[in-house]
């Protein structure tokens, strides 16, 4: 039988260290919902989503009760709507966002992702229509998340799309100005987007995915933080080893839940995403892990190296624990969702420039960052371009989820509520990037040899 120590260790992780299954995300293909009439197409989408995900929440709750581990979110991702709705004769794709939103409400999930377009090499008719519909779609729906992939290592960076997304983010912020630009919290701009990501706002069901798949995201910054407290002052190889062992245990939970959920829901088991995803709760912070490793405040010198080690050790530990690892898998650094990051940003130690450096070595990118409301569309586009370049050159996923909060300035903060947290408004460089962004065209794909 299991010994008492093992049982109590697991219970402590759940009770005191915020171990949880962050999300069970059901990916649903909408490719067979195409129809020239947008109303028919939207109805087909709604019907399909609600049919497939009918029991998602119920099943998640049943597993939660049996296993005694919290499953925080149950979510849905769908085929990028730019593809699924492309044959419709309409300019405005908001109707499809509304169908997604209604389906999410019927199923009882708290986010649905996939109001997306993949434009790394160029736009199709559907891509343009979708991007133009984003501000309205995000302002008039509650649970719909949107993402646009503007670059990849194989295709380079579509700078026209980068420019367009800078403008779209500004429009979305203004369209949701009454909620401090909340719409932008549901909009991600990617480079090298992954097709099986279970985490929002960037989840969509990629074109290479099966009809229906269950992807599970595990989390547990608090567990790693507590494990590191037991190796104070030890050398880095001990620290890395401790993180690996902890990540292994966390991921085994995810694997178990993913297998159980996919079996019960009759869907394929997709992947386990072994990400350290923080929440605003005290003791569930990635920044505090970095500080436990030894940097006095997250963002000071040494932070990038600490994060690189953390990210790598999480992957190494997790990979062996799951039969199929995918998604984003790494440490997330969303500023507003991490109590330690918020504190470091408020102190002025954690800056946008340092965050950019950190994104070179960890999962994803500039995430949940509020900037002054008067930041220009070109500056936002240039921030996206920088981040996309990091992803393109390093063959990794990078993303930008940035909120130019209308009427807010450095020193203010915006309240997103729930897991999205509180974002202190961070300064951006005041020198413009107008000419850079207005060149347009494409940054060519990089050389993959002679890598120095």
């Amino acid at each position, binding site marked *: *039988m*299991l*010994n*008492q120590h*093992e*049982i*109590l*260790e*697991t*219970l402590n992780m759940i009770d005191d260290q915020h171990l949880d299954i962050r999300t069970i995300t059901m990916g649903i293909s909408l490719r067979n919902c195409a129809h020239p009439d947008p109303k028919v197409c939207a109805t087909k989408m709604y019907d399909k989503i609600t049919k497939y995900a009918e029991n998602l929440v119920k099943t998640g709750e*049943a597993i939660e*009760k*049996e*296993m*005694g*581990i919290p499953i925080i979110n149950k979510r849905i991702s769908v085929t990028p709507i730019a593809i699924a709705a492309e044959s419709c004769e309409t300019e405005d794709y908001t109707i499809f966002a509304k169908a997604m939103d209604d389906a999410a409400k019927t199923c009882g999930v708290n986010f649905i992702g996939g109001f997306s377009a993949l434009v790394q090499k160029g736009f199709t008719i559907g891509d343009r229509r979708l991007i133009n519909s984003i501000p309205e779609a995000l302002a008039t729906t509650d649970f719909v998340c949107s993402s646009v992939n503007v670059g990849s290592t194989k295709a380079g960076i579509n700078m026209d799309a980068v420019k367009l997304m800078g403008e779209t983010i500004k429009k979305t912020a203004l369209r949701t100005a009454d909620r401090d630009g909340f719409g932008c919290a549901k909009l991600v701009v990617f480079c090298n987007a992954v097709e099986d990501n279970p985490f929002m706002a960037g989840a969509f069901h990629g074109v290479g995915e099966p009809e229906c798949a269950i992807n599970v995201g595990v989390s547990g910054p608090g567990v790693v933080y507590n494990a590191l407290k037991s190796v104070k002052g030890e050398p880095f190889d001990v620290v890395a080893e401790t993180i690996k062992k902890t990540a292994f*245990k966390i991921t*085994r*939970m995810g*694997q*178990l839940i993913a297998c159980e959920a996919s079996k019960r829901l009759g869907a394929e088991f997709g992947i386990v995403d072994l990400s350290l995803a923080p929440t605003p709760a005290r003791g569930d912070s990635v920044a505090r892990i970095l500080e436990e490793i030894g940097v006095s405040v997250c963002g000071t010198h040494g932070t990038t190296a600490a994060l690189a080690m953390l990210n790598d050790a999480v992957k190494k530990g997790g990979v062996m624990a799951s039969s199929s690892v995918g998604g984003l898998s790494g440490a997330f650094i969303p500023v507003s969702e991490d109590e330690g990051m918020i504190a470091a940003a408020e102190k002025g130690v954690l800056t946008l420039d340092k965050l950019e450096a950190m994104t070179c070595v960890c999962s994803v990118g500039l995430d949940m960052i509020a900037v002054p409301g008067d930041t220009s569309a070109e500056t936002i586009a240039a921030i996206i371009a920088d981040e996309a370049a990091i992803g393109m050159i390093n063959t990794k996923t990078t993303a930008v989820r940035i909120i130019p909060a209308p009427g807010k300035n450095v020193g203010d903060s915006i309240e997103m509520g729930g897991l999205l947290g509180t974002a202190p408004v961070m300064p951006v460089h005041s020198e413009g990037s107008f000419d850079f962004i207005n060149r347009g065209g494409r940054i060519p794909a990089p050389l993959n040899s002679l890598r120095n």
Partner: protein
Amino acid sequence: MNAVITVVGKDKVGIMAGVCVALQKINVNILDISQTVMQNMFTMNMLVDVKQANVSYSEIVDALDAEGERLGVNIRIQREDIFDAMHRI
């Protein structure tokens, strides 16, 4: 199916008896028990077989919750799988 029951709370007379009677009522078989009292805190782990239970799993959870409330201790039941996944390769 096996499940692990953990009982944690301030020690007093009748905790073990209460839990065992509650389990008997719903026909849950006890396979193994380990129990200690540390600094006046009662801690018990119990491996049980719920296959023959005369109620659903969800009702077992509710029955133990109610018993825990009556006894003033925290009782929870979790499938053994979750511990095996974490601690056994």
